[in-house]
């Protein structure tokens, strides 16, 4: 039963001092922003529909009471027609909140009011928070929230203009609603004659319950049983919503807004695509160029730190083997991963900026046609972009996809995105083996092959999971939005922290395992376990032109992609200077072998951290198995073909 994480305490006997508050609203109305400002948490805020897919509860202490706020995913009504609706309904059924807070978007009142009207039918203890009033004010639209309050007899807490939310007023209202201090609501939405007659006839059949009023239950029953009744019920609610929206706003939004003007260029049928590529190119360029000094500084300081630690540990007479484990195993692995942290943080910053502004939704609009030709949803583009910073991020971002097919494809495809660790190794090897024009061609062909593999992956997944839910593409295209620096830094910080916490254990464990395999039995490297495994696999590897040294390097690559270079250095006894390693490699490996090696390296089993994340996100071993073994086999097959084709051609 403890399905909802995040500190929600299940209370069977309602404890007097705990008030359960559920925050609901349409997608993208600023529920998470509200949640953050009242709880002080830093759950991501973004202009992205359907981002809060994890239910999060936070406790706030106020006037001897404990108020538990739960942030729920965005919905349009109470039903089970989307995964968000199912999630919200399950939560409402199990947690049975005392107070339901409906968040309204001042710029999108009709849909919000529709949800509010249905909530008022279902629950008695309801209150409203009116968000984005300042956005409305920018358009010279005034929202008379007191009229809404009077009309529906429901407390309305308007969001403060220009500043942040004043939680005290909200808490007082919440407690007032919870203690039923407010006058009893008498508002009832009246339907057409036929429906009212059916409602009267059904009276007594159902009871008011914590799950919803009898009237609402009857309406839901009618909706599910009769198509035309459903249309009538929903239309009636929308008519009232439209009517109220007109009466509580000073004027309707007309004319061309700033967003409309910007979208003329951003979503231009011809220029939109190139513009998008430019935006991402600039983003990646800035990420890597700005972060390089920081990365180098971090790597150097970590190196000297670990050297100092080595001296210290030797001084206090710890066993040499143990010192080596710490310095050569753990510190080295962690240091290599830490080197990527500055660029990761910067990437998160730019990504958050684009996401909060509302640009990412537009990217989906631009990319959907091409993506769907490849068997993917347009939204898959975002995990792919994030996957280029680290495959782990791509897999996490796959949450935005709701259908099982789309999400599985996004998770598997993300692990083919060229991450910085892979690119670093590739650039080094390509520039060592090939001249400028050839080098560019080799790099491009690698990227092309990964893209082709993504299409194949999507096809293979479609054999196992039917492509239903294709119709679930529809989503809102919200106006562009300014983001506050506070939100930007909060979100970036949270993503970075989340990332570090997520990978640290796996990185340390993988470093220890790889160190043990390469340190025992003590003696020359050729005798160690890892070398023995490499030699054992050499007959298979030779089909692809790989010697045991390269196989060992690939094995290290499964622990962490970036460690391929350092392990090649150890195996070939190269000094620290990378120029040296390049020379040694050129003497030992033919360009064809190098090309085959690169190809395999690009597409074989993703790193352990990625595989662990795959499991955490899907809880499905089959997907991890495909991710690990499927890509390994496809890499092997392609490797054999490439190598033999190369032998024939050159």
């Amino acid at each position, binding site marked *: 039963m403890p399905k909802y994480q995040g500190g929600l305490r299940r209370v069977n006997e309602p404890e007097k001092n705990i008030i359960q508050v559920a925050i609901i609203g349409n997608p993208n109305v600023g529920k998470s922003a509200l949640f953050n400002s009242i709880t002080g948490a830093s759950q991501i805020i973004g202009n992205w529909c359907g981002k809060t897919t994890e239910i999060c509860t936070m406790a706030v202490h106020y006037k001897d009471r404990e108020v538990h706020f739960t942030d729920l995913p965005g919905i349009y009504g109470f039903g089970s027609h989307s995964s968000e609706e199912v999630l919200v309904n399950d939560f409402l059924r199990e947690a049975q909140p005392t107070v339901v807070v409906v968040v309204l978007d001042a710029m999108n009142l009709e849909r919000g009011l529709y949800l509010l009207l249905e909530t008022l039918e279902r629950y008695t203890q309801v209150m409203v928070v009116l968000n984005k009033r300042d956005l409305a004010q920018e358009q010279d639209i005034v929202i008379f929230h007191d009229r809404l309050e009077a009309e529906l007899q429901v407390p309305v807490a308007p969001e403060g203009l220009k500043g942040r939310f004043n939680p005290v007023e909200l808490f007082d209202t919440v407690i007032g609603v919870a203690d039923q201090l407010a006058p009893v609501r008498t508002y009832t939405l009246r339907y057409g004659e036929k429906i009212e007659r059916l409602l009267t006839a059904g009276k007594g059949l159902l009871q008011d319950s914590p799950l919803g009023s009898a009237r609402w239950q009857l309406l839901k029953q009618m909706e599910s049983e009769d*198509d035309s009744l459903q249309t009538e019920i929903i239309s009636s609610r929308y008519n009232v919503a439209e009517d109220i929206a007109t009466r509580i706003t000073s004027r309707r939004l007309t004319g061309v807004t700033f967003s409309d003007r910007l979208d003329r260029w951003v979503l231009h049928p011809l220029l939109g695509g190139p513009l998008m590529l430019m935006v991402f190119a600039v983003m990646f360029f800035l990420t890597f160029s700005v972060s390089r000094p920081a990365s180098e500084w971090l790597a150097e300081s970590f190196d000297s730190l670990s050297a100092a630690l080595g001296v210290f540990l030797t001084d206090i007479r710890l066993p040499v083997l143990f010192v080596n484990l710490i310095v050569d195993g753990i510190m080295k692995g962690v240091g290599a991963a830490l080197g990527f942290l500055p660029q990761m943080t910067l990437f998160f910053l730019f990504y958050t900026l684009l996401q909060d502004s509302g640009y990412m939704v537009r990217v989906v609009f631009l990319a959907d046609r091409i993506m769907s030709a490849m068997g993917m949803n347009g939204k898959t583009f975002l995990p792919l972009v994030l996957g280029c910073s680290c495959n782990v991020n791509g897999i996490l971002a796959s949450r935005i996809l709701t259908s099982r097919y789309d999400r599985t494809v996004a998770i598997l495809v993300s692990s083919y995105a060229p991450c910085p660790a892979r690119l670093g190794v590739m650039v080094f090897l390509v520039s060592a083996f090939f001249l400028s024009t050839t080098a560019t061609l080799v790099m491009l062909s690698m990227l092309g092959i990964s893209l082709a593999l993504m299409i194949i992956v999507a096809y293979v997944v479609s054999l196992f999971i039917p492509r239903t839910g294709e119709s679930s593409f*529809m989503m809102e295209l919200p106006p562009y939005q300014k983001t506050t620096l506070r939100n930007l830094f909060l979100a970036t910080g949270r993503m970075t922290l989340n990332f570090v916490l997520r990978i640290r254990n796996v990185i340390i464990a993988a470093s220890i395992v790889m160190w043990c395999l390469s340190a025992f039995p003590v003696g020359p490297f050729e005798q160690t376990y890892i070398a023995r495994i490499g030699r054992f696999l050499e007959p298979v590897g030779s089909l692809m032109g790989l010697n045991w040294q390269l196989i060992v390097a690939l094995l290290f690559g499964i622990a962490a992609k970036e460690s391929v270079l350092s392990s090649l250095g150890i195996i070939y006894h190269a000094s620290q200077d990378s120029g040296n390693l390049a020379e040694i490699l050129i003497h030992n490996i033919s360009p064809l072998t190098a090309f085959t090696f690169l190809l395999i390296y690009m597409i074989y089993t993703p790193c352990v951290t990625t595989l662990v994340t795959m499991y955490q996100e899907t809880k499905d071993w089959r997907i991890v198995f495909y991710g690990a073994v499927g890509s390994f086999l496809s890499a092997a097959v392609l490797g054999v073909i490439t190598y033999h084709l190369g032998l024939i051609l050159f």
Partner: protein
Amino acid sequence: MSADITLDMAVARQALTITGLTGSQSEKTRFLQMGFTPGTAVQIVRRAPMSDPVEIKVRGTHMMLRLVECQNIKVAFAE
């Protein structure tokens, strides 16, 4: 009034009124809940590169839909 026009056939900026919905039960419900009720004004704002998906304006907000989804929305020319 022409009966069998669906939203995907419309030209950008043409003023239309929703007359009905087709498709699966849950799809119809989703459309209704988002305000695609009969009588609602709707228009296509623009089409994406290669004309799919399309951006539409309904109830004062912009939404994006794939063409296959638009085929389930029956419309008539607004007076």
